[in-house]
């Protein structure tokens, strides 16, 4: 057996080991649904119907045999709520948030690696393929450093739960016992796969072995995603419990407990959020390395890395509001008063902050793209139009953050003369806000299109017609979105809600059709000059850092909102929180706490980056090493 064949055999064996690791928890879990499956349950019922106690599922409304204890009724005291000389809830908040930040990051980055490695494998330009491969390797290297921290923070989180909320954690683990064991096995599988994937990089870099390596990244991401889904089932259960009766007694069907009303929307929302967040963190890392670079080569490499990370992050940021919309719709469908507490009640001001954050994210993205046009010859022609984009973005932003009705004290109500502000109250209706955010997203799409064609001129015979068509398409998209926003004032509120569908459809049409058309038009286009990677303003890198910080902050904010909507319930309507902290903090306190969490995360991860920079560096492939006229091409762009 020659060395190449042996390598192949070992690689295939490693891949099989990974698949086994992936399947192991699934195989282990097969008997667990049977605990509550119909057949044994029915048998048991037949044998001794008189002795078994039955309960009705609070969500699925199905009957099941009671196999668990009721949710404990806690009392404020050292037994149920042991504590230090500090608010236990704040300690848990901190431990949870840090684990989530790191967890999101290490789950998102391997997905990027998979995409980038795949791009490297399919790219025909060898120099560019090598660059993509190097980039994917850089990404996974960053993720690996953060991986061990994630595990440590997970341990801290469990200890915090066990020591500060023993009754609650005891109840939750009694319900989720099989899921928690599977989770632990999945974690082992994730670790094993990640290490084989990372350390096998150099040994499997070409030909068939590369494909095996790429398959490993697919398995790694399947495991990571399943891990996240399992963790989501716990928070889904806390918000919208199922699989238990009114007293919180487990009815034996573990799938019902996992598959709660909000599980799927939470899964989709979180996976998109993690990706956007991961993009932000890697972009910030690239910005840091760019700013600290001493050579042009380094600057070029990290400029490119920052761009790719930003583009991937934004690609997942754009559908995020739509996933959020679905989640909120499901929240309203599950419990209307929960939805109202979120959007029109106690937590409504936090959504005003969220709107502000979304605006900041899109403004930062646009600013970065405009700055990035400075590194390509030929893009000057678009510079003079940027002021108009700024104006459109600002208008959209102002409309988007204008509130309609607000929670007020009697004195404030009297001072304002009604439940709506005399001037602003006329503008903040939902269709107008939808109009605002859709204008912002469409403008971001336009900025991307301009960036993608910055240094190119289409050589197609129908290029002129194509350009006119694109201009007209964008013009009518704006007209449609704005017209519907205004039309919303003339129709009843319940009809007005439906206007969001055509508004979103218009934006998505711009996104898909214009990107596709632009790509076709720019294929084989004449280049006015290469993209001069590294020759971007320092300000642009701060835009990337702004993007990353704002995204981290928004993640903390939305997590807080999601968690605090349960108000004084550990498990909504099942297990009541009787600790001294069963109240909702003020907006200001929450904002301070979120800032603290964000800064702790960033200070710690900057420290990790710095440590990483001390390690022996892999010399990045020279930006100038690419084929003439084939400057490094960002993902999916020109």
């Amino acid at each position: 057996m020659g060395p190449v064949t042996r390598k192949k055999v070992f690689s295939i064996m490693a891949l099989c080991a990974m698949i086994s690791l992936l399947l192991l928890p699934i195989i282990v879990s097969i008997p667990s649904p049977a605990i509550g499956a119909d057949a044994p349950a029915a048998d048991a019922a037949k044998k001794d119907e008189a002795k078994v106690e039955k309960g009705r599922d609070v969500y699925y409304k199905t009957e099941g045999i009671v196999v668990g204890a009721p949710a404990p009724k806690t009392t404020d005291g050292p037994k149920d709520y042991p504590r230090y000389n500090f608010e236990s809830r704040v300690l848990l908040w901190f431990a949870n948030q840090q684990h989530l930040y790191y967890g999101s990051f290490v789950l998102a980055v391997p997905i990027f690696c998979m995409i980038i490695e795949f791009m490297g494998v399919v790219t025909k330009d060898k120099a560019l393929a090598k660059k993509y491969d190097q980039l994917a390797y850089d990404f996974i290297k960053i993720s690996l450093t953060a991986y061990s921290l994630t595990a440590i923070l997970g341990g801290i989180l469990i200890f915090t739960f066990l020591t500060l909320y023993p009754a609650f954690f005891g109840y939750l683990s009694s319900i989720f016992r099989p899921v928690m064991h599977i989770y632990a096995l999945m974690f082992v599988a994730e670790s094993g796969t990640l290490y084989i994937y990372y350390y096998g990089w150099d040994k499997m870099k070409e030909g068939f072995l590369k494909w095996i390596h790429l398959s490993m990244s697919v398995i790694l991401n399947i495991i990571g995603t399943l891990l996240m889904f399992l963790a989501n089932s716990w928070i889904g259960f806390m918000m919208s419990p199922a699989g238990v009766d009114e007293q919180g007694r487990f009815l034996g069907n573990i799938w019902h407990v996992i598959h709660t009303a909000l599980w799927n929307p939470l899964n989709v929302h979180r996976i998109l959020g993690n990706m956007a967040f991961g993009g932000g963190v890697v972009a910030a890392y690239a910005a840091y390395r760019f700013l600290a670079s001493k050579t042009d080569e380094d600057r070029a490499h990290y400029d490119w890395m920052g761009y790719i990370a930003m583009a991937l992050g934004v690609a997942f940021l754009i559908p995020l509001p739509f996933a959020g919309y679905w989640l909120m719709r499901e929240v309203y469908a599950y419990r209307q008063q929960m939805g109202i507490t979120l959007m029109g009640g106690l937590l409504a001001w936090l959504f005003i902050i969220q709107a502000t954050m979304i605006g900041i994210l899109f403004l930062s993205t646009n600013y970065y793209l405009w700055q990035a046009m400075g590194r390509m010859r030929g893009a000057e022609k678009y510079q003079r139009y940027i002021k108009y984009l700024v104006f459109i973005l600002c208008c959209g932003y102002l409309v988007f953050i204008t509130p309609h009705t607000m929670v007020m004290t009697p004195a404030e109500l009297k001072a304002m003369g009604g439940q709506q502000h005399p001037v602003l109250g006329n503008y903040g209706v939902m269709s107008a806000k939808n109009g605002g955010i859709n204008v912002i997203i469409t403008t971001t799409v336009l900025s991307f299109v301009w960036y993608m064609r910055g240094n190119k001129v289409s050589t197609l015979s129908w290029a002129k017609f194509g350009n006119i068509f694109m201009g007209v398409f964008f013009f009518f998209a704006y007209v449609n979105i704005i017209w519907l926003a205004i039309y919303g004032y003339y129709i009843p509120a319940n009809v007005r809600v439906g206007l969001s569908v055509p508004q979103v459809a218009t934006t998505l049409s711009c996104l898909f059709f214009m990107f596709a058309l632009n790509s076709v038009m720019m294929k084989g286009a004449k280049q006015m000059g290469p993209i001069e990677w590294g020759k971007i303003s320092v300000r642009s890198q701060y835009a990337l850092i702004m993007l990353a910080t704002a995204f981290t902050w928004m993640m903390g904010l939305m997590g807080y909102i999601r968690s605090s909507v349960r108000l004084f319930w550990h498990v909504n309507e099942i297990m009541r929180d009787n600790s001294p902290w069963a109240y909702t903090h003020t907006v200001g306190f929450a904002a301070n706490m979120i800032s603290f969490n964000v800064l702790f995360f960033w200070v710690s991860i900057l420290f990790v980056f710095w440590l990483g920079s001390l390690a022996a560096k892999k010399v990045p492939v020279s930006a100038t090493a690419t084929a003439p006229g084939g400057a490094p091409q960002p993902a999916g762009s020109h």
Partner: protein
Amino acid sequence: MGDLIGQALDIGWPALALLVGLLVYFQVSIKDPVAKKRATFKTFIGIIAAVMLFIAIANYKENFYGENRLLPVSLVMITSLAFMMGIYFTNLAALLKIGGFMFFVAAALSGYGNWLPQVEGGFPPKEEKLDFSSMTPQQLADEGEKIIFGGIGQNKVQGAIGKGQCPLCHAFHAGMLGERAPNLLGLPERAGKERIEDPKYHKGEPAKREYADKEACPGCGTATTAQEYIAESHSCPSCYVVSGYGVKGTNDKESPMPKIHKPPISLSLPELAAVDTWLYVREGREAPSFEEITKSYEKFIPEADRPKMTEDKPAVAGALLADGSEPVDQIFAKAQCVSCHTIPGIPGATGTIGPKLVEGTNAPTRIKDKDYKGTAKSTPEYIMESVVSPSTYVVKPFPDNTMPKVFGQKLSAGALKKIVDYLSNVYEGKEPPKIS
């Protein structure tokens, strides 16, 4: 500010001492005047930055629970010092500038959060033990208004909400928005006519109903009077849904309203009687009697499903922890004071979660404290106030809301008096009083 600088020095003196030591060391050890000047300048900048950092930390520590609007100031200070350090420590400039910028972004967002109106969600509604059955209709209606809106006279206040959470979806006055659920003005009139006579309601024929639920419980039947209709709507919202107010996509077959006697609202039958009485009384109508209303609910809510007035209570209105017949050390133990406080003379009272209770010495000083906003004029008054209403004055640096606010209800007057008498006579450095 003076206090903050003092606290900053308390926290950071070892680091500051180290920097000052370095400054002295550089003066002695560096011979090259240019290098000496540079090292001196950098160390001096380091000292200023460290002082700023510790002031920022002291501000966080001091104002974490109290004046949290001041906390973003700390972040701004850290931003400035990070940029300042970035200028002089060029090898770490990128890291410091990025860090500084992040602190600036966080400070701006934190400041924004603090600038917005501050709404705090209160504690979960506490269940009071009231005898609704002996109340007059007006008293009952007042209690009903409290349950719906959170207070008497609150029904016209926008955003007012009580344990029942009704105004989240329902409007109660003419012209008020009621897009999510029907406006309840005129309900007593409408219930007995329009609603139960509606062919879709299928009065007396629940099996013919096309809604998500046919009946509130097997064999419950349908309403025959206005009051029964109201009771049925509360206990089985999906037995009949007013057109246009169903869950989206169900063609008005299912109501988004929760069953009012089930969690999270869990109103007991007497509480529901109070709510219904208000609906009648506020329109100047004669309300059915308490017994008639509870009977209407009994028709639709089986015995096993009826929430009890004492159910799921967060250790508020249970039995007394101490009735005052016990010696004072047992009262302290039964009320769990010993877990959190150190109390001289009381065996096992060595807790450190709350302040040490030497109130003979401390109370007079605290009453004079500029931050004291209570009404006590003497030591016993101060102790009583601290036990019954612990948030009136919170001893620094202990956090607020740690001590339960239930001792006013959980301790008898005799037990409270014993606590006050004992603690009034505990002085720092003196023998504690005898246990009686």
